[in-house]
């Protein structure tokens, strides 16, 4: 990369946004992937998008709308999935379709130019404002701090939730906390990565790391590194090839996942699984 481009403030902001967003999304992704909650994450991402569109429609800060919607959806999905009144897939699917419906309704009701709304679809890491960057940085510190403080509880809940409950860990509180952290992360990354693409950045680096290690600490570190690499390589591609930044970040993340899967030492686990099933 030519060194002089780093002198531009927008590029400095973009690099920092890639660092904060890459780390935060990947850490959240580790929880989502380990708990097999991919669909819940997609649903929260779409809720944030719908909330942001409502903010634009009614003239208040889209990030406040995104935060309200994503946290509310997390607050609804958690108990719905836990109580088992409906199949979790069904209940999450209903919330997901509602959020998608609301997003298109708000988009349809929007008068005049929809540029700001469409930017939230795809995101633009090259136009991240100082205010967005501060919000992203605060969310990154919160997420990393919570993981450091509650690491042992989080490890117990994401790997053995029923056991965590049975040994007296406040497992439900930790689980809902992870859902709220997902909502917060999605909201903070909305402008840089975009509502439709954010979930790929949550899923791909963590899913790639999941292929490479059996240690949760290493998985968090590897996923964070993959998240940052995805953002920075995508950013460079966006700048030099003049392509949408959100798309280039997500494609980079997908390529990393493909490589990790191809070279995964865990491919042999199928043998273990078969042995366990026949046990």
């Amino acid at each position, binding site marked *: 990369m030519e060194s002089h481009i780093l002198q531009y403030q927008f590029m400095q902001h973009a690099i920092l946004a890639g660092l904060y967003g890459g780390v935060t999304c990947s850490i959240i992704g580790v929880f989502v992937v380990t708990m097999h909650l991919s669909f819940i994450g997609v649903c929260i991402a779409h809720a944030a998008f719908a909330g942001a569109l409502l903010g634009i429609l009614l003239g208040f800060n889209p990030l406040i709308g995104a935060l309200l919607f994503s946290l509310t959806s997390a607050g609804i999905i958690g108990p719905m999935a836990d109580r088992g009144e409906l199949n979790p897939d069904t209940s999450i699917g209903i919330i997901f379709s509602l959020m998608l419906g609301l997003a298109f309704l708000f988009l349809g009701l929007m008068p005049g130019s929809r540029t700001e709304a469409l930017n939230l679809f795809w995101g633009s890491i090259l136009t991240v404002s100082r205010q967005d960057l501060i919000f992203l940085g605060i969310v990154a510190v919160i997420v990393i701090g919570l993981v450091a403080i509650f690491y042992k509880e989080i490890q117990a809940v994401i*790997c053995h939730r029923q056991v965590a409950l049975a040994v007296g860990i406040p497992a439900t509180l930790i689980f809902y906390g992870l859902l709220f952290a997902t909502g917060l992360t999605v909201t903070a990354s909305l402008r840089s990565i975009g509502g439709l693409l954010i979930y790929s950045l949550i899923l791909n680096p963590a899913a790639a790391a999941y292929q490479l290690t059996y240690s949760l600490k290493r998985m968090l570190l590897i996923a964070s590194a993959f998240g940052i690499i995805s953002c920075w390589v995508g950013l460079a591609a966006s700048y030099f090839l003049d392509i949408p930044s959100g798309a280039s970040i997500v494609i980079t993340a997908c390529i990393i996942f493909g490589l990790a899967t191809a070279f995964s030492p865990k491919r042999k686990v199928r043998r273990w699984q078969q042995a366990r099933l026949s046990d």
Partner: protein
Amino acid sequence: MDNVVISIKDAVVSYREDVALQGVSLEVRRGEFIGIIGPNGAGKTTLLTVINGLGKLVHGQARVLGLPVNGRNGIKLRRRIGYVAQVENIDPRLPINVRETVMVGSYGRLGLFRRPTRPQWENVDRVLDMVGITHLARRPIGHLSGGEYQRAAIARALVQQPEIFLLDEPTASIDPQAQREILSLIQLIHKEYHMTTLFVTHDLRQLPSVCQHLILMKEGRIWQQGDPKAMLKREILSQLYGAPVSVPTEIAGS
């Protein structure tokens, strides 16, 4: 009376339209080994969840380790109660090894904001040695066989230093050799620690010989209870299971 660690009076538990427990009353004294048998759907597992506070009573009362079982005491109680369920099918890629899984048992008592110390890790290693899986300590938990997994689950419960030990079909879905080994281990633990133990099974052959009192459950009720020798009669068991049942010639694990 002071010796009573579990006291349940007229407990009713319902899952929507289904009544899982219908007026169950029970007293268990410290150090007793209680067997609970009955067909599937008899309410055996639900009874255990009432004791550890995970099952919600719609009627009746439960008092465990001197505390009334309610939403406020649930977490406090579960920290003092070891629970081993039947083998679950877990993801072989799960990023946690056997040693870490066993340590999870101590996290409830340890509380929030505190990390496990070196002596606690040494205790985990001692317990792994006791249940005979030291050589598997660094193996991913998803790579264990059913019998090995149950040893790890028992180790996790022991690390918790429980006052009550709840075993819910711990030998289901594992091979006969592993079943014998797990039962021997459970008996050894009871002889060593004298923990109040409730052992649930639907398979009569899996009843440990240390069992001092047998509860027969059917359709959410305690149908009969008493000395295992008095209860393990062909007529009683055939009525319990609704089909002819042969009485095991010797209680498993002896």
